[in-house]
């Protein structure tokens, strides 16, 4: 792979594409767009309906529009608190996960050392652990750490950050090792000739060149933490509950507030989708920035 890893973004040949290609593309992308958009449309339209309407037959065009759900969502559950929790937890987990993964991937990609295979295989195999298997033990460990040292890991944001950052770690390390491998070693060699040590070579040369990979990994780490339900439902309490669990609060003992579920989902999704929009620019920029050749 490394021999043809040119650092240039590669659109296909500028030669005019044949009609068959254009039509296939048009049809495929149209269908795919419909598939992607459908639930989003349902969310938007249902979030604007009164409760009686959403618990009745589906209508494409809402008969009566109301902004009431957008007001009620803040009352039904402490959505703002959950939101802050999710941002803090997912954000911190992402930053640390990416940092730890960069170091580990650098070691695996650029050095040969005893135990390297054991490390990669072990880290990789943790992706196979069914969450159920270690949910309870992990909880017990956190509690015991808490009892022994006074560091409250269970029920706290910190415990969740630690858990989530580790969840995304194996894949991040793996992915980044691949990216680092594809960066020609001549680059860090050149940096070292200029007097850089291994760490500054990592940060000055490899990290910028691998930024698309790093961004992809960061996005992955963020989303892993953002959407996780099982561990969050057991490891959080009132004050640390994240959105993924908190949104379930709209289904209460008495009622499912479908319109509020949809409104809340939209409200909490908007910042994330905007975040993606911004990252897109970096994604593209990162790809061209790597052109040191």
């Amino acid at each position, binding site marked *: *792979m*490394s021999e*043809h*890893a040119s650092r*240039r973004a*590669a*659109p296909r*040949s500028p030669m005019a594409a*044949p009609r068959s*290609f254009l039509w296939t593309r048009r049809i495929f992308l149209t269908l*795919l767009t419909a598939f*992607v958009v459908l*639930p989003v449309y*349902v969310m938007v339209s249902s979030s604007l309906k009164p409760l009686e309407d*959403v618990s009745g*037959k*589906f209508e494409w065009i809402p008969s009566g529009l109301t902004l009431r759900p957008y007001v009620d969502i803040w009352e039904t559950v402490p959505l703002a608190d959950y939101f802050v929790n999710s941002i803090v937890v997912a954000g911190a987990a992402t930053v640390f996960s990416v940092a*730890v993964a960069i*170091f*580990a991937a*650098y*070691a695996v990609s650029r050095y*040969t050392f005893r135990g*390297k295979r*054991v*490390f990669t*295989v072990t*880290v*990789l*195999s*943790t992706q*196979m652990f069914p*969450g*159920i*298997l*270690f949910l309870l*033990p*992990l909880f017990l*460990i956190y509690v015991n750490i808490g009892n022994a040292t006074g560091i409250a890991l269970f029920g706290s944001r910190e415990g969740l950050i*630690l*858990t989530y*950052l*580790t969840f995304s770690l194996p894949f991040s390390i793996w*992915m980044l*090792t*691949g990216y680092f491998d594809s960066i020609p*070693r001549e680059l*860090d060699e050149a940096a*070292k000739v200029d007097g850089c040590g291994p760490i500054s070579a990592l940060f000055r040369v490899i990290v910028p060149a691998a930024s*698309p990979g790093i961004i992809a990994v960061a996005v992955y780490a963020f989303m892993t933490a953002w959407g996780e*339900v099982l561990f969050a439902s057991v490891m959080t309490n009132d004050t640390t509950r994240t959105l993924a669990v908190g949104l*379930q609060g709209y289904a209460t003992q008495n009622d499912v507030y479908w319109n509020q579920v*949809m409104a809340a*989902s939209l409200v909490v*999704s908007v910042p*994330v*989708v905007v975040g*993606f929009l911004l990252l*897109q620019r970096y994604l593209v920029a990162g*790809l061209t920035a790597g052109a040191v050749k």
Partner: protein
Amino acid sequence: MTETAVAHPTEPAVRKATPGEARAPRRSGRRRIALPYLLLLPALLLELLVHLVPMLMGIVMSFKELTQFYIRNWGEAPWSGLDNYTVAIDFDAPVGQALLKSFLTTCLFTLLSVGLCWFLGTAAAIFLQENFRGRGFLRTLFLVPYALPVYAAVITWAFMFQRDNGLINHVLHDQLGIGDSPAFWLIGDNAFYTLLVVSVWKGWPFAFLTVMAGLQNIPRDMYEAAALDGAGVWKQIRHITLPSLRSVNQVLVLVLFLWTFNDFNTPFVLFGKAAPESADLISLHIYQSSFQTWNFGTGSAMSVLLLLFLLVVTGVYLLLTSRGRKTSDV
């Protein structure tokens, strides 16, 4: 297990040329040796704390009779030897039968879901490789399913799949007139397809993202050379794009497989605590066997069996794909 070590897609390349390595002896030896370990240390500690030690505890639990009578002090729960395992794999008794059925369902589900995710992701990435109007918009739009919190997305699908009030039946039955009476999607046999649709909707953007990143590494001149040789777009995709994605795909398919196989969130939010038999995925099944029936010993035993299965599959997969790669490289 050591065979899987060959696994790393780019390992051969690393061994072939590592200039840093060649220079190593000239530096201060001890520090040189310590550095990679120091770099790995944080990752290692975290893995130990969150994954490895808990997993070992889980394995220990699987040999204990850890029912509701003992969970309060599980250290004192009596050892039960292989009892939990014999219950789990006694395929003539209902518990084992249900586990086997759930396992087979999960296999089929994973196969279809990964296949579709990969196909949609790859196709979309290739179609969006070249610039055209609306490309940036679509690229962002396609990431929306990935950006939505799982709970929000899945509950919306559950809302749409309701029999009497949902959009799906409104379209299929009321508007297109398919079927005599509206179908059930959240219970009965159709639940499998419901789960598949939701899982693909949620999962394919990841494949899209990964393949898109992989496409960036294909040098432009390869296409130019092919174009000079008179290869059309379809041919270029077949002969340049797809083969170049090989190593990306190797990783992608494997992680999609593992995530889909272990996915808990989707079926849990979609069906609640008791999934219909047709969509009873293994993770939810184990959850039910441990949390719902408070038998953490049997639940752990099932998890360990699942883990062994995944280890074997992954090992074989990596062995096969790596060998394939090596021969094709020659």
